[in-house]
């Protein structure tokens, strides 16, 4: 496989993942919960497929975006449900 294309793909995947993680509001590992850990495990596997061109980058973006949207929605639900309880 062409090393330059691997590098471009790796950079693209890194930038997208970083942008998505920052946009989702996560800042440090210390802030992590079990939900964060679960999402991190799934994202790691998705990154592997994109890096080695086993899936299209667009499919990688859709998978990561969907996971993080669901993750953010769960955070919002936990916060609001927790507020309603207290």
């Amino acid at each position: 496989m062409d090393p330059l294309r691997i590098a471009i793909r790796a950079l693209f995947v890194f930038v997208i993942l970083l942008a998505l993680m920052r946009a989702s509001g996560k800042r440090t590992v210390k802030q992590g919960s079990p939900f964060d850990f679960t999402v991190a495990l799934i994202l790691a596997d998705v990154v592997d497929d994109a890096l080695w061109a086993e899936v299209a980058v667009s499919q990688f973006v859709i998978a990561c975006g969907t996971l993080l949207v669901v993750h953010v929605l769960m955070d919002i639900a936990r916060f609001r449900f927790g507020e309603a309880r207290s």
Partner: protein
Amino acid sequence: MSELLKVMLVTTVALGVTAAAVIYGDTRTVVPPPESVVEQFARHVAARRYDRALQHIDDRSSITLTTVRLGGEALHERAGDIDRVEGEPGITAEDSATVSAVLTTHRGGRIRYACSLERRNGLWKIAKWEEIR
């Protein structure tokens, strides 16, 4: 809620960038290159995951799940276990490519899957598949 909008915005922008790359002619970077598609196809056949192998086949081709399954089972019967699968770059034009994958088998030595691919909606799909011993 702002985090939700930011994630959706980043996702949309990233999709736009990849779509632009494909529209402007990228055939190997943001989409799996032809040799990767053929290698994935051969790996799925080697693992007897014929339904997964079918996802790499062009819908307009005459290759069906039955074709893939029969070919895969015949290969396993004749050559035994498959030790290694490796895609080889071949000839790539704008919307068509001819590449192959080499399967190293236990009993049958090296077997080559020669494939012709067409680009459909930006992705490479296998239109013809031939086993060469």
